[in-house]
């Protein structure tokens, strides 16, 4: 095991797969010569050359369209969309083309491709560069969705995404890029669709994703030590496929569900999970389902405002103390 940053785990995952399979190619804006604006792909150009690692014009529709056309004719492209907010400029290619073509052609066309993108807040970039849009993607049938919280998951799930025969949208959380963690050496491949129980408790099950996993863990610590409230923390990791078995099982154990979402409130992934739980383990619930999210506003840029908009450890502690007894 080596210690890697979340950022370096991205390059490690891509390199592992490009080494394994000549048909894996990588394209995006400023990704090759410059190694990406988040420096997550440094070294790939040197290692794999300009035929396989390509800089693109500012043409997101062309980038994802090209990835789609390449995937249906034998390549396995990894395409970068620099900030997840920019998925909006190529949303047609994601939601209407990539996600639907296999179904519309009754299975004639299959798309083994990965779209990587930097998601989320915390950099004081303002409303157009800070969104968490995993819920946009979750609403679209036909695309798998992964959002890792740890460097090891970045490498393992990215490799799994590349090997998956279906299109995968891979959300890298900007605020985690410099986080360090142990990452297995050598070939490492994880599995899509498996949530992880990171901490087992008795009173409440907190379900979180990406950066919010760390806040949930921090809150669970404080709740246990300072307030005697014992929480389970589940890292969802993959929204599609969704590991409802793990989530339902853990909610049944504690009788309570709290979701912690970085996205603004309405139609977040937590709403979907809440609706599943309120249907399928209603009789096991001991109290209301609580969703902790960013308020339903675009994100402000000033540090003070941004920090207070995104769910913080303190807010998770406070809300759980108020609502779970």
């Amino acid at each position, binding site marked *: 095991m080596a210690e890697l940053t979340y950022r370096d785990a991205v390059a490690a995952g891509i390199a592992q797969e490009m080494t394994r399979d000549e048909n894996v*190619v990588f394209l995006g804006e400023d990704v090759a010569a410059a190694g990406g604006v988040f420096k997550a792909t440094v070294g790939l150009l040197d290692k794999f050359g300009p*035929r396989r690692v*390509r800089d*693109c*014009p500012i*043409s*997101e*529709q*062309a*980038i*994802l*369209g*090209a*990835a*789609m*056309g*390449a*995937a*249906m*004719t*034998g*390549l396995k*492209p990894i395409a970068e969309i620099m900030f997840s907010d920019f998925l909006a400029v190529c949303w*047609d*290619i994601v939601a*209407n*083309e990539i996600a639907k*073509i*296999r*179904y*519309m*052609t*009754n*299975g*004639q*066309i*299959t798309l*083994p491709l990965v779209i990587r993108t930097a998601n989320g807040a915390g950099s004081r970039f303002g409303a157009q560069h800070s969104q968490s849009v995993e819920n946009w993607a979750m609403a679209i*049938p*036909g695309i798998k969705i992964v959002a890792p919280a740890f460097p090891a998951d970045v490498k393992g799930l990215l490799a799994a995404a590349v090997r998956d*025969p*279906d299109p995968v949208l891979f959300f890298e959380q900007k605020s985690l890029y410099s986080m360090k963690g142990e990452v297995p050496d050598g070939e490492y491949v994880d599995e899509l*669709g498996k949530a992880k129980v990171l901490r087992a408790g008795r009173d409440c099950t907190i379900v979180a994703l990406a950066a919010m996993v760390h806040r949930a863990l921090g809150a669970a610590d404080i709740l246990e030590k300072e307030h005697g409230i014992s929480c389970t923390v589940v890292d969802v990791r993959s929204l*599609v*496929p*969704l*590991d*409802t*078995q793990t989530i339902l099982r853990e909610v049944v154990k504690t009788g309570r569900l709290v979701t912690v979402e970085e996205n603004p409130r309405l139609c977040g992934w937590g709403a979907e999970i809440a609706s*599943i739980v309120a249907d399928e383990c209603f009789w096991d619930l001991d109290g209301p389902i609580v969703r902790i999210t960013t308020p339903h506003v675009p994100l402000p840029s000033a540090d003070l405002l941004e920090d207070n908009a995104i769910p913080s450890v303190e807010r998770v502690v406070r809300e759980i103390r108020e609502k779970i007894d």
Partner: protein
Amino acid sequence: MDTSAKRNKSSPPAPDIGRETRLELYRLQLELRYCEKRAYDLFLQNLIKGTSHLSLGQEAIAAAFGVAMRPDDWTFCTYRGHAHTLARGASMEGVLGELMGRQCGLLGGKGGSMHLTDVKKGAMGSYAIIGAHLPVAAGAAWSAQYRGTEQVAVCFFGDGTANIGAFHEALNFAAVWKLPVVYVCENNLYMEYTPISAVTAVEHPAADRAAAYGLPSIIVDGNDADEVYKVAREALNKARAGGGPSLIEAKTYRHSGHSRADPAKYRPEGELEKWLQRDPIVLYRERLLKLGFNEPTLIDMEAEAMRQVDAATATAKASPLPSVDDIEKNVWADGGSAWRN
């Protein structure tokens, strides 16, 4: 063929078109014509539901590319894609069956008229949102370039499509990467119901923009299968030889409305009549006769095309409806649609 001054003069002159090829061009145009006409009849009988966009009057373009392309080349087309899909060799019962929502349909009833696809024949999909398939075609071309297969992607679209953003992105992208892709704009003078001239800053929506991507401006008579064939061969050769993309504007006209629902009242009086006199199939028949082809051969060909359409119609009508279970099939590569465990 009318090319701008900027057109690369050094490309070799297209060799003449052989007699077999000419017959093939005629045969294919007839098949497309009769199959489209049948689609129209089947609407009227309410056997085809939903919408449908016919290529009646525009067959020369699809046919000429169909003949010029290599079997392993790829076609990307629009919702107006029956002809282009058939021209690659997709079966008539597959096409008509799909329009009728039958199991024998190319897509088993999942896609319908606007999404005809036959991957085995290189028909890589029909796309119903304007512009989207232009970058997708570039991607296929990239894959051919990457693997050195000398395959070419051919992408058909309409005049109205030249005003959407994806057109611009795809053309620049293809030009910068020198991709083996041929973009074919079928300028039929209208977007849906609005004349293209009312919404476009230049006279030729595609050709007048070729220079913006460092490409020569190419305009061809889209109702003359020979002319289209020559341009097609040239562009395909250029792409195969590593010369990069082409953008071709083929001038043509649709005989029917935009889609099933459209009686095409917006056309100025006499316009349709004028174009009917330039019906590509009538013109081509005249040319063949002038070139000394014998009339009975042509009449046989016509009868054979009709017979094929009849047979395909019968097969499609006899084909069962899809099963309700199909709804949840084929989202994922595993054949299913599960989003949870």
